[in-house]
């Protein structure tokens, strides 16, 4: 029989849809990966790595000391002198291709572990982090035997042993950014992942072992800041590549001064996202959301300073607030979650400190209505309106889901304000006018300028900053030159 003549609106909500975790294998304890072997740390010390969404311990992780670092560097030096630098370039390429393919085969496992250990949503780890990490290996695998075309009329040589220190916001992706170009150019590696997110790098170690990469070519040592410091100070390291905070970057820069070590530093940012009145507004709102709330705002190039042309500011802000209300904050493993957990308790406290500073500075705060899980480290998507250039919250990097909004009236004004920052990593420009895009992309002092999009990454494109955002470029052809010297 016919039922329901005219239907009444239903409260239609998505049922929970968590990604399964039964297929992943995690050991209770991870030691150090040196010479393709799992070795107990000489320090004899372990520390726990925690799932920030549940505060549960996932595994115990070795905490390497100076002696452990020395063992890893010696392994890398030995592999460099005796195998890797002697190997024909096309053979090096084959290993990189093999790593990329094996990562692809285990993509789901990597995505789940990345989400468990770091708190990012499964949607992002599955659709962005892992596929992109594979692509970086594929891309640099292709360069391995074509370096003479990358550096025409130059005789180039690898640097030797590269010490690489990576952050917790994109653990596997940053490992790929660092390892792939170093190996393609013939260097060997000691990689130190962040203390809060070591697991995907340690899973990558399994692949490195399984693919038959010669022992010592990639060594992975875990630990805290002192482990990284020991790596930076080690006299037999030829290159330091660091991605992380500007504060630590400065310490590294001081430590390598007066040595022969080459460095690339990819540091913080306070990037401007600029919306003009002729922009496609609904898409710009998406770009603003993607710019600041992607990966909970734990993105060095996050569009954390929004500049909106004054005549459209009310409509942009209204639409932005409405869009923010439709974001799902919660269990990072649920496929429908848009914003996951803050990476650590420490980081959550930092973000909360800045939110309080913003309130104290008299800025108008807006946070979404969403209910946060009772356990784990979560932060509501946050806007600050009526912000001045001189507010702390518009000057310092917050590294969380917090956006400051300022308005502008003229192009000159917005260029001046966007550049008026100690940082210069990225910027976004939203306009329908092509000529305006070219004008701004030459005048904005930022390593990347995105036009009508934001947070787009590609292996072929160089990435890096101006001023306190660091120096050196990663990705693309430029990424190769950071790992070679010409005679």
């Amino acid at each position, binding site marked *: 029989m016919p039922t*329901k003549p005219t*239907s009444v*609106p239903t409260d*239609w909500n*998505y049922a*929970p849809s968590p990604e399964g975790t039964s297929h992943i294998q995690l050991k209770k304890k991870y030691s150090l990966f040196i010479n393709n072997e799992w070795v107990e740390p000489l320090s004899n010390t372990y520390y726990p790595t925690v799932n920030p969404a549940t505060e549960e311990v996932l595994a115990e992780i070795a905490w390497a000391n100076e002696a452990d670092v020395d063992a890893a560097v010696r392994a890398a030096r030995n592999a460099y002198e005796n195998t890797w630098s002697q190997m024909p370039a096309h053979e090096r390429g084959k290993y990189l291709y093999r790593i990329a393919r094996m990562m692809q085969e285990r993509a789901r496992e990597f995505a789940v572990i990345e989400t468990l250990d770091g708190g990012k949503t499964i949607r992002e780890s599955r659709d962005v982090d892992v596929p992109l990490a594979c692509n970086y290996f594929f891309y640099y695998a292709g360069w391995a035997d074509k370096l003479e075309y990358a550096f025409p009329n130059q005789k180039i040589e690898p640097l030797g042993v590269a010490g690489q220190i990576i952050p917790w916001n994109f653990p596997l992706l940053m490992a790929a950014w660092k390892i792939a170009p170093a190996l393609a150019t013939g260097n060997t590696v000691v990689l130190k992942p962040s203390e809060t997110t070591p697991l995907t790098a340690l899973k990558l170690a399994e692949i490195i072992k399984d693919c038959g990469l010669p022992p010592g070519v990639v060594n992975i040592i875990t630990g805290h800041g002192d482990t990284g410091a020991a790596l930076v100070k080690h006299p037999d390291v030829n290159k330091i590549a660091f991605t992380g905070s500007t504060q630590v970057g400065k310490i590294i820069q001081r430590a390598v001064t007066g040595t022969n070590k080459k460095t690339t530093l990819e540091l913080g940012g306070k990037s401007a996202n600029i919306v003009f009145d002729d922009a496609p507004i609904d*898409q710009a709102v998406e770009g603003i959301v993607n710019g600041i709330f992607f990966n909970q705002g734990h993105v060095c190039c996050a569009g954390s300073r929004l500049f909106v042309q004054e005549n459209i500011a009310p409509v942009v802000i209204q639409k932005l607030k409405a869009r923010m209300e439709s974001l799902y904050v919660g269990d990072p493993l649920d496929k429908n979650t848009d914003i996951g957990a803050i990476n650590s308790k420490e980081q959550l406290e930092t973000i909360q400190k800045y939110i309080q500073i913003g309130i104290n500075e008299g800025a108008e705060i807006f946070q979404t209505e969403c209910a946060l899980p009772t356990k784990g480290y979560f932060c509501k998507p946050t806007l600050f309106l009526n912000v001045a250039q001189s507010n702390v919250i518009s000057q310092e990097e917050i590294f969380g889901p917090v956006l400051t909004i300022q308005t502008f009236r003229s192009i000159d004004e917005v260029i001046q304000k966007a550049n008026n920052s100690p940082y210069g990593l990225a910027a976004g420009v939203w306009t329908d006018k092509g000529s305006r895009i070219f004008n701004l992309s030459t005048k904005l002092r930022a390593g990347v300028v995105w036009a*009508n*999009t934001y947070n787009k990454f590609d292996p072929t494109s160089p990435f890096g900053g101006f001023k306190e955002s660091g120096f050196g470029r990663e990705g693309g052809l430029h990424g190769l030159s950071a790992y070679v010297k010409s005679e």
Partner: protein
Amino acid sequence: MAKPFIPSEVFSNVSIDKVGVEERIARFQSRSIKNEAKHQGLRMVLNMIDLTTLEGKDTPGKVRQMCYKAQHLHDAFPGLPTVAAVCVYPSMVKIAKDSLVGSSVKIASVSTAFPSGQSTHQVKILDTQFAIDQGADEIDMVISRGKFLAGEYAFVYDEIAAIKEVCGKTRLKVILETGELPTLDMVRKASDIAIHAGADFIKTSTGKIQPAATMQVTYTMLMAIKDHYDRTGIMIGMKPAGGISNSKLALHNLVMVKEILGNKWLSNEWFRFGASSLANDVLMQIMKSENGNYQSADYFTID
């Protein structure tokens, strides 16, 4: 008489970036609709369908059969909702009316020289009046795409307003025929014109032109509805028609409506699917979720 005043926003240009729209669509498509949400969603889809036959070869017999199906989607499984409406040519409205006596299923009639709209003002008025006199509950008119593309927006506006005047309380759906509007900016402009001229619903397509109801186009129209609602508090309905032939795509459309306009729009008063083959695919999915496996298409009737 047409409305004398045309609001300025009708002629303003809302620019739309297709690449950005596609990214947003990908987000909707990556939503995972499982268990209870899927179950509920599929029933909602059934209840939002305008079961349609719009062919030169339509006969009273064909229309009567479709009207029966509209009320008895799958009698083997009791408790299912009916579709929202049947959609037919004006000449078939009377037949449908007689077949649906006592039913809650509404009768929508196309008009204004559907599908091309290439006729005189007089004919379009008469066409609409005839459909209403025959008993149509809803009118699906087409806009004059030629005039629109020639930039004669006032003509398009006046024509819609005139048809709305004939309709009175009969709900008017305005078909933009987006397959003939080459850019999303134009889709947006046509949406704004239709909404301001008095449309109760805006509808993507006639079903005669490809591409029809792509998610990009539906997204653009939903945003026009949202902007209008934010400005005025007036709800306008949306009907994607043509090309939505499977459950997954239909559910993605619901996700889009939910996330843009909110649950308020999730009823057949505000959202419809113009489709002929969608119903059976949805039925097949519902039966699959009931008993765990797919039945052959031959178990679902094809009136």
